C-alpha cells in the first residue's frame, strides 16, 4: 500500500515545460531514499493548467504544486512527503488569489469549470485500465451490450449530444443513419486529427483518458452493428498514440475488445492509422480517403459516410471528444444527469483550449451556455500583462473572431454561429490590442491556403487571391476596392467550395471585416497599422538626440537607406527603407524609432 499518490502531469504541455526532468528527479530522489514502495508516482493526464506546469498533485493530501523544477524535488520529498509540511512557495500564486492556493477548489482557474469529459484526466493513470474501471469505466459499454441498438441510439439522441468536432451535427441521428444503412460490414471511425492552430483538446483526452474514447467507440459499434474501428490520429501526437495502443492492448486482455466480447457474441477490432499532418484530413471524407491509403482529399457528400464511408461501407465517424462523452450518457442514469448541463440547443460541456494573449493558457471544460467573458476573464485570468482585450478567435481557421462587445455571448453552437464564428473543435485564441486584425486574417488565410487540398477551384485559387489581397493590404499597397473584392471572393468561396473547410475558410476574413472594418480601412487608406504589427507600414527614424554617428546602422542596412558622416547624426531615407529592422538590432544607442504612422487618406486611387 502506498502512503501517497503523486500525480505528475505527463501530458505534452507539461512535458514541454520540463515535467520529464522533474519526474526523473523525483524518481531518483525516491530511489535514493528507498521510498519507492511508499510513494506512488504516476505520469497522469492533463489537469489543464498548462500555464503553470510542470504540475504535481499529491493525494490524499490534496495539494497542487506548480511551476516545478528538478531542484525543488529534494525539498518536496524532505519536507512534504516525509515531513508532512505543505511547501507554500510551490503552491499556485497569482493576481487572482490573495493567498497561495492549495488545491483545485481554491484556484480560480478551476472555479467555473465542470469536469465531465475530463473527469479522469489528471486523476487516474491513463496507462492502467484498472483505474479507469474503478472510476466506473466500461460499465456503460457493458450496459449497452445488454440493450438493443436502437435503445442505445435513443439515449444518445435524448442526451442532445452534438458533434464536438466542429459542425455540431446531432450524434444520435448520425448513429441512427449508420444503423439503418444497408450492409453487413460497418465501421466506427474516430477523428483524432486535431489540426486547428492552438487546439489540443483531443490530444489531452487521448493522453489523459484513452479508455473513455475506446469505450465511446465500442458503444457506437454496438449501436450501429460494427465489428471494426479506426482511430485516425496525427503522427505528431506520439504520446496519445502510445497510450491508445496500451489501452487497446489492455482492453483486449480484459475481453472488452476482440472476439466474443464479454460472452455476448460480438466482435470488435481497433486499428490505429497515423495521419501525416495534413489539416484537410480532419475533414471526414478526406480522413476516410487517407485511411484507405489515398491522398487525403474530400469528396462530395452525399453520399454521407453513414451510408458510404470507409471502403464504401456505412461508417460512423465522430471526433475524440464526442466519443468521450458517450460513456457518461449511456451509463445507468446517465442521460438524466447529462441533460441537466448546458442550454436548450447545446447540451453537456465543451472543452476549450485557451491560447494567445491570455494569462492562463491551458485546457478547460465548461458547461455549454457559459459566457465568453467568464471563460476568458474568470477562468483564463484575463489578458496577459494587463493589456486590453481586443477579440477572441473561436473555431480556428474555419471560425471567426468575436470582439469585446460580444463577450457576454453564451457559448453554444447557435450563438457562436450567429456571431460569425463557430464552436469548432474548441480552440480559443485570445488577442489583445497589439494584435492586428488584418494580419490575423492574413495569417489564417495563409494557413488555409497552404493546407488547401487543392481539389476545388474556389478554395485552391480563391484563397490564394484573397491571401494576395491581404498581403498587399498589410504591406501598405491596399486599394480602396480591396474590401469589396475580398467580400465578393469570400462569398463565392463560401457558396461554392467543395468541403466544409473550404466553405468556412473565409470566416476569419469576413468576421474581422465585420467587426474591425476600420482597421482594414486604416491599412488601405492611411497605411496605418494601429497594432504596430504590419512592418511595412512603420516609419523608421533616427532620433538625433541619441544618435552618436557610429555608422553601425548604415553598414548593416542591406539597401543603403541610411546615410550620415561618421560622428554625425544619421538619416534614414523612407523611400529606400524596406523596414527590415536590421538597424534597430544593430544600434547600441536605441536611437532608431519605429513608429506606426498614420498617413493622410490617399484618394487618388
Amino acid at each position, binding site marked *: 500500500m502506498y502512503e501517497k499518490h503523486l500525480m505528475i502531469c505527463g501530458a505534452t504541455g507539461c512535458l514541454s515545460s520540463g515535467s520529464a526532468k522533474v519526474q526523473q528527479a523525483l524518481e531518483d530522489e525516491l530511489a535514493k531514499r528507498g521510498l519507492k514502495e511508499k510513494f506512488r508516482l504516476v505520469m497522469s493526464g492533463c489537469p489543464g493548467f498548462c500555464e503553470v506546469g510542470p504540475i504535481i498533485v499529491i493525494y490524499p493530501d490534496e495539494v497542487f504544486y506548480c511551476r516545478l523544477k528538478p531542484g525543488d524535488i529534494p525539498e518536496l520529498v524532505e519536507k512534504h512527503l516525509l515531513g508532512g509540511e505543505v511547501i507554500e512557495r510551490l503552491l499556485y500564486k497569482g493576481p487572482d488569489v490573495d493567498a497561495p492556493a492549495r488545491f483545485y477548489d481554491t484556484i480560480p482557474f478551476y472555479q467555473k469549470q465542470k469536469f465531465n469529459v475530463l473527469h479522469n484526466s489528471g486523476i487516474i493513470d491513463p496507462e492502467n485500465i484498472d483505474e479507469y474501471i474503478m472510476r466506473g469505466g466500461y460499465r456503460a459499454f457493458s450496459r449497452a451490450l445488454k440493450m438493443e441498438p436502437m435503445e442505445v441510439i435513443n439515449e444518445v439522441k435524448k442526451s442532445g449530444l452534438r458533434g464536438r468536432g466542429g459542425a455540431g451535427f446531432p450524434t444520435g441521428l448520425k448513429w441512427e443513419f449508420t444503423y439503418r444503412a444497408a450492409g453487413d460490414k460497418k465501421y466506427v471511425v474516430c477523428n483524432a486529427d486535431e489540426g486547428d492552430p492552438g487546439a489540443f483538446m483531443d490530444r489531452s483526452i487521448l493522453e489523459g483518458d484513452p479508455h473513455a474514447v475506446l469505450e465511446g467507440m465500442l458503444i457506437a459499434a454496438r449501436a450501429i452493428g460494427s465489428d471494426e474501428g479506426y482511430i485516425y490520429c496525427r503522427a505528431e501526437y506520439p504520446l496519445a498514440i502510445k497510450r491508445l495502443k496500451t489501452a487497446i492492448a489492455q482492453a483486449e486482455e480484459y475481453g472488452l475488445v476482440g472476439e466474443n466480447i464479454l460472452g455476448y457474441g460480438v466482435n470488435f477490432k481497433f486499428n490505429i492509422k497515423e495521419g501525416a499532418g495534413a489539416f484537410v484530413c480532419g475533414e471526414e471524407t478526406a480522413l476516410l480517403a487517407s485511411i484507405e491509403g489515398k491522398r487525403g482529399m474530400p469528396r462530395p457528400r452525399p453520399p454521407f459516410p453513414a451510408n458510404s464511408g470507409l471502403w464504401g461501407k456505412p461508417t460512423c465517424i465522430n471526433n475524440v471528444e464526442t466519443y468521450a462523452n458517450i460513456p457518461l450518457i449511456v451509463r445507468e442514469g446517465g442521460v438524466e444527469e447529462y441533460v441537466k448541463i448546458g442550454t436548450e440547443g447545446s447540451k453537456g460541456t465543451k472543452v476549450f483550449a485557451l491560447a494567445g494573449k491570455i494569462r492562463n493558457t491551458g485546457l478547460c471544460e465548461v458547461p455549454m451556455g457559459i459566457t465568453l467573458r467568464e471563460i476568458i476573464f474568470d477562468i483564463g485570468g484575463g489578458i496577459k500583462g494587463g493589456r486590453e482585450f481586443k477579440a477572441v478567435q473561436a473555431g480556428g481557421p474555419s471560425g471567426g473572431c468575436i470582439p469585446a462587445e460580444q463577450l457576454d455571448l453564451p457559448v453554444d453552437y447557435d450563438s457562436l454561429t450567429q456571431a460569425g464564428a463557430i464552436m469548432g473543435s474548441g480552440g480559443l485564441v485570445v488577442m489583445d490590442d497589439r494584435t492586428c486584425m488584418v494580419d490575423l486574417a492574413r495569417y489564417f488565410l495563409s494557413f488555409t491556403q497552404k493546407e488547401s487540398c487543392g481539389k476545388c477551384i474556389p478554395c485552391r485559387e480563391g*484563397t490564394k487571391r484573397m491571401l494576395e489581397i491581404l498581403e498587399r493590404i498589410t504591406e501598405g499597397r491596399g486599394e480602396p476596392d480591396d474590401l469589396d473584392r475580398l467580400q465578393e471572393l469570400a462569398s463565392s468561396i463560401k*457558396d461554392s*467550395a467543395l468541403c466544409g473547410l473550404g466553405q468556412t475558410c473565409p470566416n476569419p476574413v469576413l468576421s474581422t471585416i465585420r467587426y474591425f472594418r476600420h482597421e482594414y480601412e486604416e491599412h488601405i487608406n492611411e497605411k496605418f497599422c494601429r497594432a504596430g504589427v504590419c512592418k511595412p507600414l512603420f516609419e523608421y527614424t533616427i532620433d538625433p538626440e541619441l544618435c552618436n554617428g557610429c555608422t553601425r546602422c548604415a553598414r548593416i542596412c542591406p539597401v543603403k537607406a541610411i546615410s550620415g558622416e561618421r560622428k554625425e547624426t544619421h538619416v534614414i531615407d523612407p523611400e529606400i527603407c524596406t523596414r527590415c529592422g536590421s538597424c534597430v538590432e544593430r544600434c547600441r544607442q536605441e536611437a532608431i524609432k519605429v513608429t506606426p504612422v498614420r498617413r493622410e487618406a490617399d484618394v487618388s486611387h
Partner: protein
Amino acid sequence: MSAIKLTIDGRPVEVEPGTTILEAARKLGIDIPTFCHDPELAPNGACRICVVEVERARALVASCCAPVAPDMVVHTESERVVKARKAILRLILANHPLDCITCEKTGQCKLQDYCYRYGISESDFEGEVKELPLDDTNPFYIRDMNKCILCGRCVGRCQEINGAGAIDFIGRGFSTIVGPAFGDPIEESSCVFCGMCVDVCPVGALIPKAGVGKGRPWEVEKVKTICPYCGTGCSIYLHVKDGRIIGASPDFEGPVNRGHLCSKGRFGWDFVHSEERLTRPLIKKDGVFVEASWDEALDLVAEKVRDLLNRYGPDSLMGLSSAKTSNEDNYLFQKLMRSLGTNNVDHCARL
C-alpha cells in the same frame, strides 16, 4: 422505387432515384457546364463550375454529384449561380496562360467555351501564376501543367480505369499540381501511355505530340475505324486533314471500348504513313526486287499459279490469309484458294 419529380428552371421532370441533378437537367436539354464531371468515374465535384441553386439549400450545390430529391426546385442559371461560375472562371483565368491563338486546344477547349458563354475575357486578379516547365520527355504527349485546371479527370482515368496509377495530385494549396510521384517526368513513371487522360482533358494541358501544328479541330474530319491491333475491337476515330491522319480519339459511344483505349490504339496509327509503305508491285529479278506495273505483277502471279496447278495439282498450293485484314478480304482469299481446288488455307490464329 418510384420516380422522383422535381422542377428545373421551372420545368417539371421525372427521373429515377439516384439520378444526379446534372443528369436530370440534361434530360431536359439544359446545358450545365462541367469540367471535372466524368460519367465513367466516381463522383468528383472538384471544379464547381456545375453548381446550381437548390431552393432551401444553404450553399450552392454541385449538380454533377448531388442526387435529385422529391419536389426539389433547381435553378441552373440564376444570378447567384452565374456569379459563382463567373468567379470560378475568373479564378481559373488568373492562373492560366492566355495563348489561345496558338494553343492546340483552341476550338475544343471547355475553358474557352465557358468564358465565351459567361463573357469573361480576362481576370481582374493580379498575382502569382504557375510557371512550370513543360514535360515533353515522352514521345506520346506534352504535359503543360501551366494550363492544367486540376479537374482531376486524368487522375481518375489513370487510377480507376487504367489502374496504372501513374499520376495523382501532388503538393498542396496553390502549388497543387497533377503529376507522377516525386515530380518525376511522366516517362519515368508507371504510365503506360494509354492516352485516356489526353482524351478527357478539358483544356490544353495534355496535347498529343503527333498533331502539333498539323491542324485545327474544326479542320479535321473524324473517320470511324476499328483498331487494327488486338482482338478487343475498340472503335477509334482517326482525325484526317488533307488526306493524312493527324490524330486519333476513342469513340465514346464505342460498344466495346466506351471511350477507352490503350497506347497502341491511341498513338500507334502513324505506321499508315510510314515511308516504308509498299507503293508499287515488286517482282524479284535475279534476287533483286524491281518495281512493276499491276498488270505485269498480277499476270506473272497468275501464270505461275497456273503453272504449279498444271504441274503439281491444286494441293501443291498453300494460302495464308490474314487475321489482320477484313472479313471481306478473308472471305475472298479462302474463296480463291478453294476455287483453285485446294483447302490449303489457314492464317496465324495459333500464333
